[in-house]
């Protein structure tokens, strides 16, 4: 199983009597863009939460770069280089965009003394470059909470890049963003994958977007893995179409 950056095997997560994830197995190869689709309530975000350590899983194993991470906490997993963005965008609302960026630096191996350090000029430079990359440079000194929803999404994406993750889990990156901006975002996602070498694992409802982005797609329905395969195959898969149209 070399080359698989993230390996999920037989993961089950129950909430009381509800089985949100039922024996899910999937893998994300290093450097790839993988998609995760499925109707509302099919367990996509639950699976993300399980992977990043937000809640314990009931069964199964999750490996990141060969290391079992299913028992680790969110912060530890984040510091290993696996980061997630939130469906309900989360930025630090009462801080400026630049501050949001400055605080998003990688935290790996940070000692006690690092708490009291100043922001390095290089951090500022990188923060401004990334804000320019997502088109928020002019608004860098505004409070993040004063940005529109779409802009907050872009800021959250820039913050994730600031953290230099190896694997980025994006929960509906284009939801709430206007169509013109979506094209720009797709292009930026592709560039972060190609230029910065960040593996992307994306939940998305917008089919054209995910078909354009992902090489390989997994489809969940009712907590189970319904189908998987290359984007073209998934698009024509009758089971996937049925699931979305409610025939299932």
């Amino acid at each position, binding site marked *: 199983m070399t080359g698989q950056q993230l390996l999920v095997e037989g993961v089950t997560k129950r909430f009381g009597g509800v089985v949100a994830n039922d024996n899910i197995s999937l893998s994300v190869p290093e450097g790839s863009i993988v998609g995760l689709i499925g109707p509302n309530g099919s367990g996509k975000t639950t699976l993300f939460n399980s992977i990043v350590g937000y809640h314990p899983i009931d069964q199964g194993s999750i490996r990141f770069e060969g290391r079992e991470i299913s028992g680790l906490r969110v912060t530890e997993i984040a510091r290993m280089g696996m980061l997630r963005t939130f469906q309900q965008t*989360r930025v630090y609302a*009462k*801080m400026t965009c630049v501050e949001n960026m400055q605080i998003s630096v990688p935290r790996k191996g940070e000692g006690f003394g690092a708490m*009291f350090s100043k922001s390095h000029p290089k951090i500022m430079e990188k923060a401004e470059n990334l804000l320019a990359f997502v088109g928020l*440079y002019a608004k860098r000194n505004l409070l993040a909470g004063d940005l529109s929803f779409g802009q907050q999404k872009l800021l959250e994406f820039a913050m994730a890049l600031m953290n230099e993750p190896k694997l980025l889990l994006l929960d509906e990156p284009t939801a709430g963003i206007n169509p013109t901006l979506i094209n720009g975002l797709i292009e930026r996602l592709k560039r972060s994958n190609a230029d910065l070498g960040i593996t992307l694992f994306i939940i998305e409802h917008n089919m054209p977007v995910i078909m354009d982005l992902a090489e390989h797609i997994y489809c969940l329905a009712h907590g189970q893995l319904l189908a998987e395969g290359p984007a073209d195959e998934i698009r024509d898969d009758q089971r996937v179409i049925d699931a979305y149209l409610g025939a299932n």
Partner: protein
Amino acid sequence: MNSAERNATIYGAILIASLAAPWVLPAYQTQLAFLWIMVLFALTWDLVGGQMGYTSFGNIVFFGIGMYVTAVIQRNLHFDIKEYVHVAGAVDTLQPGEYLSGLFLGMGASAIVAVIIGAVLGLCILAMGMRGQYFGICTLGLGVAAGEIASGWDYIGAGSGMVAPVFPERLGERGAFFYYIFFILTVILFLTLKWLYAGRFGLAINAIRDDEDKAEAMGIRTTRYKMTAWCISALFLAVAGGAAGHLVGFIDPTEVAFAGATFGVWMILMAILGGKGTLWGPVVGAVIFYITQEVFWTYLFGWQRVAMGALIVGIVVFFPQGIMGWMRERWPERFGHRVEESTLSSSAEGGGP
């Protein structure tokens, strides 16, 4: 003219006024000393409650701990405990050297004890992930419990409290002496916080305030930051408490040391009035609040608590964001929150925050 010069002028004016105050208003030295304690209260509370967003009702615990630790060390250093309890007259026989050594040793020990207790309490409530209202209620319980424990512990005088030694006359004026102690302590605290807020620490605790889940998801060691902020707050409160016990002279367990209903609530209100989560807000809030409180006490005697209650309601209802917070909403550009259409020409364009 430029902002650096303007800041230097403001700081200089405050410094000169502060140094001269006890001699300009000699009748009010004790009140002025308490003014600095109030500023210190508001600043230490704001570190945890404002900048980090952990509304604590129990910070007063550390103030009381400092008071008792200092008084106990002062007593044990110079007196036989039995003699101390039975002969009140023995209390005023301290030489200046003895008084000072006991006081400063006590304040130092207070700092250590408070940080240790703060770390233990922090492990119990912060490291366990207690947040929001639960954290607030838990800390409220701490304050009440501390007062009860002190009231029932004979070693520290139980319900009848402790008496600090009489201030040696040869050291000059008591009010002025303590005024400068609190002034220096508050200045150190202010500069420490200014330095902390300007760096990574300030950003991290602001991030915890705005969205702790997000901060964790980004890999920030939130527990470490929360514990550190809590312990810094505890340290300064305890050192101030040590000196405050000697200023007041009589340490009552619930009315002076663990005075949750007065100091404990005031520190929150002062920070809110001035604008929580800002560096200057607590300072401004403390000065306005304390002067108002003294005025009420002087001119509305008999009704001062009613007037105080009305003021508290007024602050919370009409001024939730505080003076500095209101100014920031009113004139965001003054605080640097503006759109800057310049393009990122080169990496040379660094620019401050």
